[in-house]
C-alpha cells in the first residue's frame, strides 16, 4: 500500500514537473511578460492618379500619415524624399513607379495643384528629346549630390577638380561609376537610367560643377 502511494505520488509529481518544464520551455510566465496591441489606423489619402501605388509602396515601411502630416512641398522636395526612401531605405520602387509616386505627391501634397512636370514627360513621345540632363540629375542624383556636393562622403563631390583626382575625366567615366559604384552609392543600371539618359547626366555634371 505504502509503495502504491509512493508510486502514485511520484507519478503525480513527475506529471506536474513535466507540466512545469513544458511551461518553462514555452517561456510563458504572464508575470514577466508585457505585450501591447498596436492599432491600425486608416489614413485618407487624396484621390488621384497614383494614389494606390503611393499607398502600396509607402505602406511597406510606414503608414501614410507620414505624407499627410507634412506641409506642402515643391516637387523637387518630394522627389528628394522619394529617392531617399529608395536609395537609403531600399524601397523596391522602380523608375516608372517613383515617377508616378512623386507626381501624385507633388500634385496633391505639393505647392501647386498642377500635375508635376514628370507626368508630362511620361506622356511625351518616347523618340522626343525627353528630360534634360539637369532634370535627370535632380531626379536621380541630387538627393545625395545636392549642388554637386556629397551628403554621404564629403570627400567625393562632383566638383571637376575632385573628379579629376579620382581619375574621372569623361562622360564615360561617370557612366561607368553609375553602373558599378563604390561603397555608399546605389547602382544605377540600364533599367533605372537608360544609356541616353546616363550620358545626359554625365554631361550635365561635367559642364556644371
Amino acid at each position: 500500500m505504502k509503495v502504491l502511494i509512493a508510486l502514485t505520488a511520484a507519478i503525480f509529481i513527475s506529471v506536474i514537473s513535466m507540466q512545469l518544464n513544458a511551461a518553462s520551455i514555452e517561456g510563458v510566465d504572464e508575470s514577466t511578460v508585457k505585450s501591447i496591441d498596436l492599432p491600425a489606423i486608416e489614413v485618407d489619402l487624396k484621390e488621384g492618379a497614383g494614389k494606390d501605388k503611393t499607398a502600396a509602396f509607402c505602406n511597406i515601411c510606414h503608414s501614410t500619415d507620414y505624407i499627410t502630416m507634412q506641409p506642402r512641398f515643391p516637387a523637387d522636395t518630394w522627389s528628394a524624399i522619394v529617392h531617399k526612401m529608395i536609395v537609403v531605405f531600399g524601397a523596391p520602387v522602380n523608375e516608372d513607379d517613383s515617377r508616378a509616386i512623386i507626381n501624385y505627391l507633388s500634385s496633391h501634397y505639393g505647392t501647386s495643384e498642377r500635375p508635376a512636370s514628370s507626368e508630362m514627360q511620361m506622356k511625351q513621345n518616347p523618340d522626343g528629346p525627353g528630360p534634360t540632363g539637369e532634370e535627370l540629375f535632380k531626379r536621380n542624383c541630387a538627393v545625395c549630390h545636392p549642388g554637386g556636393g556629397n551628403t554621404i562622403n564629403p570627400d567625393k563631390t562632383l566638383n571637376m577638380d575632385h573628379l579629376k583626382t579620382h581619375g574621372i575625366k569623361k562622360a564615360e567615366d561617370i557612366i561607368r561609376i553609375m553602373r558599378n559604384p563604390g561603397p555608399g552609392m546605389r547602382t544605377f543600371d540600364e533599367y533605372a537610367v537608360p544609356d541616353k539618359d546616363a550620358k545626359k547626366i554625365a554631361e550635365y555634371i561635367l559642364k556644371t560643377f
Partner: protein
Amino acid sequence: MKDINFSRRDFLRTAGAVGLAAAFGGFPSDIFAEGRRLYKFPEKTDLILLTSRPPQLETPLHYFKELITPNEALFVRWHLADIPAYVDLNKWRLKIGGNADKVLELSMDDLKKFEKVTYTAVIQCSGNGRSFFEPRVPGGQWQNGAMGNVTWSGARLKDILNQAGIRAGSVDVVFDGLDSGPLPKVPDFLKSLPVDKAVGEDIIIAYEMNGGPLTMLNGFPARLVVPGWFATYWVKALREITVVTKKYEEFWMKPAYRIPDNPCACVPPGSKPGRTVPITRMNTRSLIIGPSNGANLKANVPVDIMGIAFSGGYSIKDVIVSVDGGKSWGESRCGKDMGKYSWIQWFYTWKPEKKGKYILMARATNSIGESQPFESLWNPSGYMWNKIESIEVNVV
C-alpha cells in the same frame, strides 16, 4: 472637453477640423487638441497622432502645467516600423560586449543589482518644434509636445561597462534596441556615444520612469538615458551594447541627426550646411504654458502667467517675461529646483489694465549664459528649435 483651459482659438481650430472630418466621413468630435487629431495607444492617454506606424505621438501642452510628465502622457517617437510589442523578461537579456574583457548578458534582475540611481531629466526629441521652421522642412511635424520631464531610475552605464571591463583603444559605445526595419536595407536604429561620454557619472540604463516600469512605447524593459542630450541617444528597448575601437558612423549617426558645425548650429534659411557634426546637447528653451495662446483675460484681474524652462545640463539662471511683445521685460519667480537636468516652472503675475491684444513672451538663460534667440535659427533638418515663443491673449 477634457481640458478646462481649452481656448477659443483651439475650439475654432477644432471646429474647423471636425467640419472637414465630417465632410470627408471622418471621426467623432471629441478627439482633437491644438487642432490636431488625438488617439489613444496602449498604456497611453489621448495623445496627438502624428503617425501610427511607427508611432509618433505628441503630448498636448496642458500636461506641462505639471512639474512631472505622467507616463501615460509622455510623447512617443520610433524610427522603424517593427517595434517591440511583446517582451518576456524571462528571455530578455541585455548583452554587453565588443572591446571588453567579458561578455555580459544581464537579466532585469541582474540590472537591478547595480546601484540604483534616480534623477529627474527632460527628454526632448531633436525635432521638437520642427513645424515652426520657415521655410518648412520634411520630417516629423512636431509642435512643442515632443518633450517631457520624467524621473528616471536605473543602473549607471559606467558601472555596467566597468563590470564588462572596457579595454584600451575603445573609441565609441554603440547601442541597439529591439526595433528593426521592415526591409533588409533599412538601416537599423543604432546610436553611439564617445567612450568618454559613455562612462560619465549620470548616464543610466533606466528601467523605471516615475517609479513604475517603462511603458512599452517609451522603451520597456530598459532604455538609455543621456540627461542633457537630445533623446535621439536615449535608445529604447535596449538589446545590445557594443564597445568599438573605431568611430561609429553608420546611418543614424551619419548622415542622420547632424547639425551644421558652427556655434549656432544654423545656416541661412533654405541653404545647405558644409561640415556637420552629430547633434548632442540640448539648447536652452522656455515655453509659456498658461494662459494658452488666444485666451481671453479680464482687465484689472491679476493673472498668473506660468511656464517651464530648461537647458542641456545647466541649471536655469533666470526667465524673463514680456507682456508687450518684447519692449520691456520683468523677472519671473522660479519654482522648485529638481536639479540641472529637470525643467523648472516659472511664474509671473500680471494685471492687465487696458483692453486689447497683448503679445506675451518668455526668455530663459542658463547658468553659463546660454539663452534663446529673438529670430529663429534655421537648419535643414529642423533641429534645436528654441526661438523665444510668443503667444497672443485678448484682454476684454
